[in-house]
């Protein structure tokens, strides 16, 4: 078997980077720990740039397990970017409040590696293992602040529920494998068409006890598998009702990790979600779309309602990110087996919203990290008077929160508009309406945060203005600019995304062409 290892050089380099960082820390004990952070960041940036330049035109498969196409490359760069900003934001935080810095950065790199592999996987086993690589890194990272009981507790809950969800997903995968005899996405696709044909009919005939089960077509096992996979993925992306771990993990984790979790973890899970559902399960869209739609609706509603009651900023962001998952799921709902170009647009819309959301979220967290570095507090009321003490941070947080609420000028508006339009276009007016209403509700709690920053005077003993370290401030400026750019002129980004999602639908397009031809 001929394997083209040059396709996955970036992954190897990533692993190497992590190992080098960890090993270097063992060797260089007297070096200021922050240099490990900056070295990691530089490494990530270099890998990102080189990957983007060297692989953009690649469209090839590594064996049957990985696909290195535009989608992969886009997400590679995307994840590297996320990691880059996370590391940059984390440097001072880690230096002040954490130990084992090199392992901290190394694990971030490993998690990023997991994300990259996840986005590239075109086969369920590889995808599952990549997901676990990612999850394991996060389990550790969430509990990284090991003397802090919150951190520890978040990690414990995350780990247990994560393992449970993996088991659910694996069972689903096993059923899919049992029915189709393969775990490769592209091979599942055609079988799915066969397997889910008239499932309702089959179930009815089975329930009727007529014994008239079509011997070669009755495969509700496939549907159960799909539902279980969706449920497992629901856990990973923290969709309601599988979201219980999210607030705890978010609140417990060290702040940069909360940022990374909410940005990278979610983005990776959705990259997987998207590739799986568009390459493998798209033909059966009619069978699962209702399930995902309900999931999306419940997620949007519950996420936002729960967020209303929060007093801790991290917890607020956790519920906020849950509701964002609802919006992202709308993009999955908009996939349409009958209309491939609509599906591709929906997928692109999803990715666009994802990128917008991630940029925004990292911006929020970078700002909060800068605040936390100074104050060590993360309740919403602690933000009081931030506009006086550090207007730039307050502005960045406000802008990002408005973006999350879907207000114009910022990324959230345009991307949400597009993603809801995708759902409307696919006949899910009610879902879009729920989404719009939910984001209206979300404005309330974002405003509560903004109010604290702008309305009140600083309180407590520490009311001085303070400085944000240069790299962090620079990162924030870039992020906020990104949020504005996506909000005002998403077209170029969308074009890039659109060209990257093309590959996801080649198979489906061929299939539907074949159906047309019949």
């Amino acid at each position: 078997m001929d394997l083209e290892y040059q396709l996955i050089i970036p992954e190897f380099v990533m692993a190497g980077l992590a190992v080098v960082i960890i090993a270097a820390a063992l060797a260089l004990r007297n070096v200021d720990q922050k240099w490990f952070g900056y070295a990691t960041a530089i490494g990530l940036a270099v890998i990102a740039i080189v990957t983007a330049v060297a692989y953009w035109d690649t469209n090839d498969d590594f064996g049957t397990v990985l696909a290195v196409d535009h989608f992969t490359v886009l997400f590679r760069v995307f994840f590297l970017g996320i990691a880059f900003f996370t590391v940059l934001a984390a440097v001072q935080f880690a230096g002040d409040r954490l130990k084992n810095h090199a392992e901290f950065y190394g694990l971030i790199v490993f998690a990023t590696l997991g994300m990259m592999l996840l986005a590239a996987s075109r086969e369920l086993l590889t995808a599952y293992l990549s997901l676990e690589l990612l999850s394991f890194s996060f389990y550790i990272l969430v509990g990284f602040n090991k003397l802090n009981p919150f951190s520890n507790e978040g990690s414990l809950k995350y780990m247990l529920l994560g393992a449970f969800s993996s088991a659910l997903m694996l069972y689903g995968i096993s059923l899919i494998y049992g029915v189709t005899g393969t775990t490769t996405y592209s091979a599942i696709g055609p079988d799915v068409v066969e397997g889910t044909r008239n499932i309702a009919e089959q179930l009815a005939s089975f329930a009727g006890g007529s014994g008239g089960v079509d011997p070669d077509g009755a495969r509700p096992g496939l549907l159960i598998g799909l539902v279980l996979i969706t449920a497992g993925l629901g856990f990973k992306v923290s969709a309601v009702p599988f979201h219980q771990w999210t607030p705890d993990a978010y609140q417990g984790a060290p702040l940069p990790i909360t940022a990374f979790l909410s940005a990278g973890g979610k983005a990776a899970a959705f990259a997987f979600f998207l590739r799986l559902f568009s390459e493998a399960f798209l033909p059966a869209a009619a069978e699962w779309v209702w399930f995902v739609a309900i999931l999306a609706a419940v997620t949007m509603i519950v996420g936002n309602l729960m967020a209303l009651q929060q007093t801790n900023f991290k917890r607020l962001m956790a519920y906020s990110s849950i509701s964002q998952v609802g919006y992202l799921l709308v993009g999955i709902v908009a996939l349409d087996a009958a209309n491939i170009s609509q599906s591709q647009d929906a997928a692109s819309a999803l990715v666009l919203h994802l990128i917008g959301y991630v940029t925004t979220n990292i911006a929020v967290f970078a700002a909060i990290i800068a605040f936390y570095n100074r104050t060590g507090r993360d309740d919403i009321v602690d933000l009081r008077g931030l506009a006086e003490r550090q207007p730039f941070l307050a502005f960045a947080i406000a802008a990002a929160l408005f973006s999350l609420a879907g207000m114009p000028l910022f990324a959230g508006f345009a991307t949400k508009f597009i993603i809801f339009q995708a759902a409307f276009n696919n006949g899910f007016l009610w879902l879009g309406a729920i989404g719009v209403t939910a984001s209206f509700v979300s404005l309330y709690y974002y405003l509560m945060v903004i109010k604290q920053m702008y309305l009140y005077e600083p309180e407590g003993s520490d009311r001085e203005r303070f400085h944000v370290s240069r790299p962090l401030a620079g990162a924030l400026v870039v992020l906020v600019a990104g949020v504005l750019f996506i909000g005002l002129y998403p077209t170029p980004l969308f074009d890039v995304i659109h060209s990257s999602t093309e590959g996801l639908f080649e198979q489906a397009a061929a299939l539907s062409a074949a159906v047309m031809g019949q």
Partner: protein
Amino acid sequence: MVLSEFAGVSMPDWIDALLRIIFIVALMTIMAFALIYLERKILARFQARVGPTRTGPIGTLQSIADALKLITKEDVRPITADRWAFELAPYMAFVPVFLVFVPMPFTETWFIRDLNLGLLFVFGVLGLNIVGVVMAAWGSDNKYALLGGVRAAAQAISYEIPMLLIVVAVVMVAAGRLAVDGDASAAGSINSIVGDQTTTPYILLQPLGFFIFIIGMLAELHRPPFDMPIAESEVVGGYFVEYSGMRWGMFFLAEYTALFLLVVLASSLFLGGWNWPFGADVGLGLQIVLTFVKTSVLIVLVIGSRALFPRLRIDQLMAFSWKVLLPFAIIQVIANGIILAYGGADWVVGLVSFGLLAALGGLVYYIMRRKQGEGARTVQTTPATPRVITAPEVTPVEAGGD
């Protein structure tokens, strides 16, 4: 199959199976008795004593006398012990060892079954006996028993890893050599590995492997100098401190059987098992003799080490496994992989392995020198506090910033 061939008659399967079981039980018992006797004798010689002399000719029936004593002894169960765990533990410790007999080649044709995955089987099954140890430790409701059990488990698991890696390295070598004959996939079978050592015992190819295997074996068996789990002066007697009578005997039996089996395995893997080292195809009778000569040498080595070496500390023991043996085992596997992948000759494999062994020796020597240089004041005489048991009630840390 084997026995029926030996007997020269064909018989139904169930009789065959029964015969094999009887064979195993008999062999195991005999070996255990012999080993107990041998150990007492050899140790006594080391200590300038004579050992048992009264029972039977030069004390040869001593083990049987011991067994009789054990059988007639009252079986006591502490009142606070957990009934099920306590009662079942000896069996859990005993049965896996019993199973390990299955793939052991005593001669070219004398074994119960030539499993294709024999090596994996040995380690997979043998590992289970630690469950019995832990059950005993916990079920006894005795602090020392628990300590001993925890130590035993930690030790067993720690040394299992380098041992397994070394077995992997051996299998790699064997597979490379067997592939020449056309069937590399047989490398998992112990008998095939032995069969390959007609002229070259693998101790020449994998001297480091042999070293690590023996060390690991000692640790697995809780033999001195790695006997902390059952050290009387530290934990009174370890996990079976509360046992008496035949149940205690079963633990002992299991231990000696395991010793015998591992020694057979070591001789099969590294010393050529039933092979005459100079390539002549010897007959069945001589094969048995060869096997037993080789195992005996190893047995004397094992028993002798009890008399020769002082006991380590538990932390030294763990550190030695994780920080010395494991890295060297990994390096050995990688080195084998590289050499074999590029078709290196056997002598290269052997040389590299020997080089690694020398490096290991040098490293250990260097560390010991440095430790001595640091002076006596750093020597700890007590084991690390067993905090796992005495961990105080920790009040939750006050909520606050990270």
